């Protein structure tokens, strides 16, 4: 890759990352900010440092790897536990990095697909069942053809 201007990005933990600008602007947020500020953008990241690091790494790798290898690399990259995945999602959402967002969404979708039934989905994602009994019954009747 051609060397280009490096942006210095500071996370909330006051750690400074030197990121190649072409990669940094994968984040829509930084792209917008970069047009406003010269070469240094303050990222008031509310997530952990590791998260930004990962997001950055993902974007870097994205740009380097060819398509065929990408899916393999990506599937390994997203094989993290739920907390990390969540952090990654928050970072991607905040920084507006589309490729990362899609990657996380696909991974979450795969996790959902692997769940055998509704209760497993709830347990995996830590979601409470807030249905009243009659509402659950209503849904069950609606989907009675599904026998699930």
């Amino acid at each position, binding site marked *: 890759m051609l060397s280009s201007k490096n942006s210095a990005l500071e996370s909330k933990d006051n750690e400074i990352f030197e990121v190649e600008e072409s990669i940094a602007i994968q984040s829509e947020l930084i792209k917008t900010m970069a047009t406003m500020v010269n070469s240094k953008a303050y990222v008031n990241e509310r997530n952990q440092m590791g998260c930004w690091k990962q997001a950055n790494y993902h974007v870097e790798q994205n740009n380097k790897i060819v398509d065929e290898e990408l899916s393999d690399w990506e599937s390994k990259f997203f094989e993290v536990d739920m907390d990390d*995945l*969540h952090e990654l*999602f928050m970072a991607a*959402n905040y920084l507006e990095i589309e490729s990362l*967002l899609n990657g*996380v*969404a*696909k991974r*979450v*979708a795969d996790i*959902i*697909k692997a*769940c055998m*039934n*509704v209760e497993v*989905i*709830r347990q995996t*994602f*830590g*979601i*409470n*069942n*807030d*249905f*009243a*009994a*009659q*509402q*659950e019954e209503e*849904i*069950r009747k*609606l*989907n009675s*053809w*599904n*026998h*699930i």
Partner: protein
Amino acid sequence: MALNWDDFENSWSSWSCSWDTEISSGNTESKGFYEAVNDDIIDRLPEDPFGMEIRSTFAAAITGWFQDFENDLWSDFCMFGMEDYAEKQIVDQQQMFKGLNWVCNGTMSLKPDESISSFYGDQSSFFKGVNWVCNNFEINETSNPDFNGFEIDNGGSFVINDEGKGLKDSKEVICNDNGGGEPSDALFFALGYLGVKDLLAVERVCRSLRDAVRSDTLLWRNIHIEHSLSRRITNDALLKLTNRAKGSLECLSLVGCVKITDHGLKCVLESNPKLTKLSVPECTGLSVEGILFNLKAFKSIGSPGIKHLKIGGCFSVTEEQFKEFKFLLGADNSIQLREQKPQFFRQGQLHFTCDDDRVIDIEICPRCDKLKLVYDCPSESCRTTHHAAQLCRACFLCIARCFRCGCCFKHCDYEETFTLDLLCFNCLKHIFGSEENSDVIGTSYELYFYG
């Protein structure tokens, strides 16, 4: 007073009680008798099952809530006015209230302060899961134009019921569960990558997911029914699913949906004028005449009509019908031959591809001149020239193909499986890995299952 908790059962959906009350914090006393809303519910309930003559502070607080008319909701509302010991009592008994519906048959007038924009229920777990139904609820909004509704932070629902209708007719005002256990936003993003089966499962997880799945029409713009759903789905269920797109359905694929009939398909078409791609292979409940008729009717109501149709190999189509199909679909022969993507015999069945621009999947086989599914050959040797590619185009009966990759057997050997499918040696090696001895493959029958 004694509330007879012991006899209480969670399965009660409504209950009547009478009490004399004293409001601890207020200046007024009131007596009231409250009955459940519906007469039919009343008829089913025994009278005063708990021997309740409620006189406790708690009851007074509740009654304060049930009082009608002039009381200012804020000061008399039980959850605000409760004293500590009463609250503790309630918390101890909280499981009693699960699943309860509180029915208020009176007129409540809410006059919120100007500074308050919403009515906010107490956070205690006491009212978790309780549904509140209030008849004839009036909200006096004049004093606060910003008032935007009720919020009960208890995981239950607060329902306004007009004119004493039944619970199920009630409108739900707002219900808010602020506690942990809410689905992360990542889940909502992931919905777009889920198929119909998973969406229906996710719908049952919690309320916010249910609402997201039902209200997002984008999720239902391309519907693909296959595998386990396809054998079970009925006309009615299909119509309900397609209606979720609210008229924006573009692509519908039904693979092996044996319960769908011509009439069912007709209903779907009528409600979805924007449908342009239809795929119905192996749907044995349909008939060619029925499909033709539906397509004609669909076009006549003014919609652009179906432009891409897949009917698969199980229907026998006459030449006349084929001509009609092509006419209805607006197929232009020369364009079709030039631009269409190759069709491969992969995994023994047509895979759904929404981006396939082929107008119709069947055509006249160059070898047997019958209307069949005609496949192209993916093998390298058959794709070197256009001529070679054309030579290797035929229906499955004329040119045998590998079940997995779809290549012909001109340049490689093959093995017949137990299920009478054919597999080329490359695919065999791929399935069993490099450990497999080629001698073994050549001489034995193996059982292969394909999902």
